[in-house]
């Protein structure tokens, strides 16, 4: 379905993504982990074609993506939704309008200028908001919502695109644990109910373990791990993050129930000692 071959991105002399190859046969929920600067965001941004590819190829359902330009590129972007860490909504517009932005690829500039969306689209936008549990905020400005609610608006915008792939770039990194759980569960549900492929960059290991079918580890632009969550051992995780023996998965956890785990207490005690 999705084939990424030897994908490379260079910024000047820096190589952000170095010959990454990923094959995905059927829709899955994939988590990409690695420390900041490992090239996770650049990889997703190349998939959405927000960044151009330096070398290598991306193909989706036997269609070459990495070379598209102009209208064909924008059509691909409409099929491949993106969710950002900072939500990237238009703050001064109402929630439904933000969700309707998911249909912009099908709309003319004239219709956009006069805010003319078909009624079916408006109804669908509200249904999607209802599915994500934020329909009552429909007429509010996006900036009036909390972070978790804004991220769900962003997910609704992605769903409005009716995409085959949803890319999520650190979707929960600016959210508190409760909202993080709501957002991750929404993404998981979209994968399970709609059968869409979800690829998410995650900054915590346990989130990747809990929600993903497949985990990809990146370090310094290279893919160093690709397997199921079960195959991801603590040693492997240390390798991905370049950490020493003091590294503890629970210490970075954002899960609410992780706080009960004695391992955290042990890790904190060790750190304090």
């Amino acid at each position: 379905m999705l084939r990424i071959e030897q994908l490379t991105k260079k910024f000047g002399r820096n190589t952000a993504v170095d010959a990454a190859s990923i094959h995905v046969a059927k829709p899955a929920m994939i988590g990409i982990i690695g420390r900041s600067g490992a090239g996770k965001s650049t990889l997703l941004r190349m998939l959405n074609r927000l960044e151009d590819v330096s070398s290598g190829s991306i193909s989706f359902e036997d269609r070459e993506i990495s070379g598209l330009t102009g209208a064909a590129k924008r059509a691909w972007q409409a099929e491949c939704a993106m969710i950002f860490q900072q939500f990237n909504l238009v703050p001064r517009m109402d929630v439904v309008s933000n969700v309707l932005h998911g249909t912009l690829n099908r709309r003319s500039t004239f219709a956009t200028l006069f805010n003319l969306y078909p009624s079916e689209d408006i109804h669908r936008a509200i249904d999607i908001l209802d599915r994500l549990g934020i329909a009552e905020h429909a007429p509010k400005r996006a900036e009036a919502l909390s972070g978790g609610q804004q991220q769900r608006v962003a997910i609704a915008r992605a769903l409005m695109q009716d995409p085959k792939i949803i890319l999520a770039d650190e979707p929960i990194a600016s959210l508190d644990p409760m909202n993080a759980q709501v957002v991750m569960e929404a993404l998981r549900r979209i994968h399970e109910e709609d059968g869409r492929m979800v690829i998410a960059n995650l900054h915590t290991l346990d989130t990747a373990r809990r929600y993903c079918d497949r985990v990809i580890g990146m370090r310094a632009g290279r893919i160093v791990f690709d397997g199921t969550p079960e195959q991801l051992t603590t040693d492997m995780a240390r390798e991905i993050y370049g950490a020493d023996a003091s590294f503890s998965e629970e210490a970075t956890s954002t899960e609410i129930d992780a706080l009960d785990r004695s391992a955290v207490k042990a890790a904190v005690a060790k750190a304090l000692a």
Partner: protein
Amino acid sequence: MPDQTAHGAGGSAPAAQIRESYMAQTRRKRLYGGVLLAIFIALMISGFMTADSRNAGGFWEGLHQIFDFPAAVLSEAGEKITELPGNLVKYLPALVETLNIAAVATLIGAMGGILLSMLATRGLARWPRLIPLFRRILDVMRAVPDIVIALVLIFVLGGGPVPAMIAIAFHTVGALGKLFSEVNENASLKPVDGLASVGANWSQRMILGVMPQVAPNYLSYALLRFEINIRASAILGFVGAGGLGYELKNAMAWGIGRYDEAAAIFLLLFITIVAVDQIGSVLRDRLTHGRKEELLA
């Protein structure tokens, strides 16, 4: 849609009701938008018709002649293309005079504008009660057309670059003062408080607490004003202030037919504006990037 509202939807209205109220809101917005658009179009059309009926010559009769003059200038300049380098050199001194008028006027105007803008900004003003007075002073300086001041001064002081410089500087104080005071409003007052806490006087607080924050914005507005002033000083040449405008007036006069020289003068003006724009962006870039390096160091 299956009911999947697992979180956060407690006590919400059913989706159908939300739909209904949102659609009503959308229809209302569209109605207002449509009415506004209709009023706008009606005003534009009626305004055009009024203006056209007062037009001496008639808009539609003259419309096709708009390009006659540029075409005449270009064709004559094309015929005498070999004289172009000579003409460019010939008018270089006039260009320098025009540039000097604009540069001095911008410098003096910017200095006056900085002072008045500080006095007219809430939170920074030396005498907060006099803010309205200083604002009105800026308004007056902007309101009087520079060409009027120039004509009066030329009458009093005689023709030449100095009256033009004073006229443009006067207008620049008003225009830049207004823009600078808007920049000042966005400046953080924290450094000013910090400096006040060590006993600094008003000028010291402004120079050390405000100026470093606003300098890049000041510079870009001042450079934009410099471009406008180059054009203004060229126009003032038409009324006897010397420089490029005087030469342009002579070259452009109907009937005499020195369009090749007019073309050379336009070319000089264009090159100058491009040069100022380019130099300005390099300067701005250096000012902001230089700061970044300082921060990193």
